[in-house]
């Protein structure tokens, strides 16, 4: 590593992990998971592996250049490893380059960096997420013998991850036999925008809409609010991220599904891998993706049927957070305590 002119890095080069620093660079605030789940879980695991180590957490707020700045600053602080969820998978190549040129191992987290292989890649697959939520909805509609079309609410047009999810959704919706009535790229993932758009579509297509595939819980919530505000019945709406608010809507029967990523597992795996790198080892991946040793985890679609097991029994969420006020009744029905 490259400790630069300051005593705080301890001045040791090579494998020592005493007082070492590791950077954990997250991409945006559009989804709450990075701040609320990934970061604390990663930190906790790291603390357990290496009590004296320090985690440098940064969030790039959807700005690739800012992420580059954050990575540079981490390098200037002499980190021993970088775990990065790139804002822009392509642009992160620069970060990989500069980290590797300073012999700092770099782990791609959540999103791949195809152009310049990182040292390791740990993720679940965004495209897969898209196809899973859409597929679950389509199956539900078929089971209900619904007839009509589907609205598709994508994520931000300027977000690469949203592009992957969109691709996945299409892979499930296009061959489903349900007509894709219209789709929309929600600027900045804003729920308000999603609501406005869906409101417009309700006037346009009226009762033809049998389902809405929304790319995350925020836009899903916006879509639901649009139906409520129009005073019509809410069709099944998807989500993604398993936010508490989404869990509440599922419990209340407003939202059809969301998707729970085993963030705990992934974050801990990332911490493990990072720690091995810091110790100077070179962990081998389960598979190889994009020329990178990789490990992929499978997320779970959450619906009313399995919400209790997936989210509550597993301890991801606490009933107290979700089952407040008006949601208590729904929780009770589902046996969530």
């Amino acid at each position, binding site marked *: 590593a490259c400790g630069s002119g300051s005593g705080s890095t301890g001045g040791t080069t090579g494998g020592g992990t005493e007082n070492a620093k590791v950077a954990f660079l997250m991409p945006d*605030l559009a989804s709450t998971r990075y*701040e609320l789940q990934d970061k604390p879980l990663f930190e906790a695991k790291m603390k357990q592996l290496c009590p004296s180590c320090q985690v440098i957490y940064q969030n790039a707020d959807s700005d690739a250049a800012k992420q580059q700045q954050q990575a540079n600053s981490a390098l200037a602080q002499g980190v021993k490893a970088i775990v990065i969820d790139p804002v822009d998978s392509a642009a992160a190549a620069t970060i990989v380059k500069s980290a590797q040129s300073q012999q700092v191992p770099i782990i791609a987290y959540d999103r791949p960096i195809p152009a310049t292989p990182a040292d390791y890649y740990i993720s679940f697959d965004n495209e897969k997420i898209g196809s899973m939520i859409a597929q679950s909805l389509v199956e539900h509609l078929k089971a209900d013998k619904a007839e009509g079309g589907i609205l598709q609410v994508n994520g931000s*047009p300027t977000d690469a991850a949203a592009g992957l999810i969109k691709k996945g959704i299409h892979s499930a919706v296009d061959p489903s036999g349900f007509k894709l009535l219209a789709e929309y790229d929600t*600027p900045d993932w804003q729920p308000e925008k999603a609501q*406005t758009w869906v409101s417009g579509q309700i006037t346009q297509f009226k009762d033809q809409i049998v389902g809405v595939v929304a790319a995350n819980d925020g836009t899903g919530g916006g879509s639901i609010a649009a139906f409520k505000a129009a005073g019509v019945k809410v069709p099944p709406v998807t989500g993604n991220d398993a936010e508490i*608010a989404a869990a509440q809507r599922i419990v209340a029967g407003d939202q059809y599904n969301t998707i729970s990523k085993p963030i705990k597992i992934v974050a801990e795996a990332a911490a493990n891998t990072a720690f091995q790198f810091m110790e100077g080892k070179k962990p081998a991946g389960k598979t190889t993706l994009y020329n990178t040793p990789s490990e992929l985890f499978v997320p779970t679609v959450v619906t009313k049927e399995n919400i209790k097991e997936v989210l509550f029994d597993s301890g991801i969420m606490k009933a107290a957070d979700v089952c407040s006020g008006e949601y208590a009744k729904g929780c009770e029905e589902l046996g969530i305590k």
Partner: protein
Amino acid sequence: MNTTTTDRQDERLQERAGVRGALTDVVERARGGDLGVIPVVVGLVVIWTVLQLLNPIFLSSANLVNLTLESAAVGIIALGIVCVLLVGQIDLSVGSVSGLSGAVLAVLFVGQGLPVWLAIAASVILGAVIGWVYGQLFNRFGVPSFVITLAGLLAFLGLQLYVLGTKGSINLPFDSGLVNFAQLDFVPAWLSYTFAVIAAVWLFASGFLHARERRRAGLSARSVSTLAVRSLALLAVLAFVVWYLGQTRGVGWMFVFFVALVLIMHYLLSRTKWGRAVYAVGGNVEAARRAGINVRAIYTSVFVLCSTFAAVGGILAAARLAAANQSSGSGDVNLNAIAAAVIGGTSLFGGRGTAFGALLGIIVIQSISSGLTLLNLDSSIRFVVTGAVLLLAVIVDSVSRRSRTSHGRA
């Protein structure tokens, strides 16, 4: 009206009386480019026609109902922006403040279980306090309001995230009065018509009394026929709007609330000493100071008003979405609110603008957004077209203003 009144004795003035006179006056002013909001309205009509041709749903009653409801939250924020722009300052933080206020509301109401009115009051007061702090910073240190509110933009965004804390997104219960107000409460048809009639009668009565007072004081005044025509026109327009929106769900209470705020602000700005002072400070702050106006108090009041409106807008936005989340108030709320004010004819340099400008401006913006949303374009094309249509809407207004400049009324 044929004996010359005190204010019409100068022989260079052309004589104009009665309905005919009023019309000539309008034509003359149109040629001189001094038309107030008329060009914006024309711009609006142009856009509406275009959008309707592109998608026949656009002018459907259901869509217009949506439009009115979607305009309210940002429109109220724009109303505050009009005030700060009037004194020649700016507030970049209205988005963050609205987001923060929504978050505080949700945390207090849902998280802490406080009664809704208390949560609302707390959010609104928070907004007022923020504005007060801006005012103090501005008056004490003379930091440009651009920088103060830029700092506020960041700080209150942070605070919003902090308040939402581990939850990130908080649902407001759909059956709460607040959410109902923003989503489902519509004015009953009979009441809407009553409102329309009251407005028209009031316009006539106040105009008539005012004219009588002026005539008694020996000043020229609008003739009864002009007044009657004017208020009948208003009645017709309002009745048509009510009838057309009534085809589906009618006029939302939230929109009525917005319009009421516009009317109140219009009154405050045009008929009170405070409003005069606001325009004076915006026109020439040194002259205002020398006239003995407490310029600092005016600045503070305006910042307070703007942040308060931002907080109210934030509450309504949260209510309409039935949720407060991390991205509430971010994105283009700031730009839309400022753009609505500017499109409605408010000058960025202070001293020129009206409360009605905010109403018209936000309707222009929401029309564009709603119309293009209905078209289901690719997002890249959608951005391009939005930009082009926005420009189109404003060119109409600007061209008429330009002719004003060339007539020496810069």
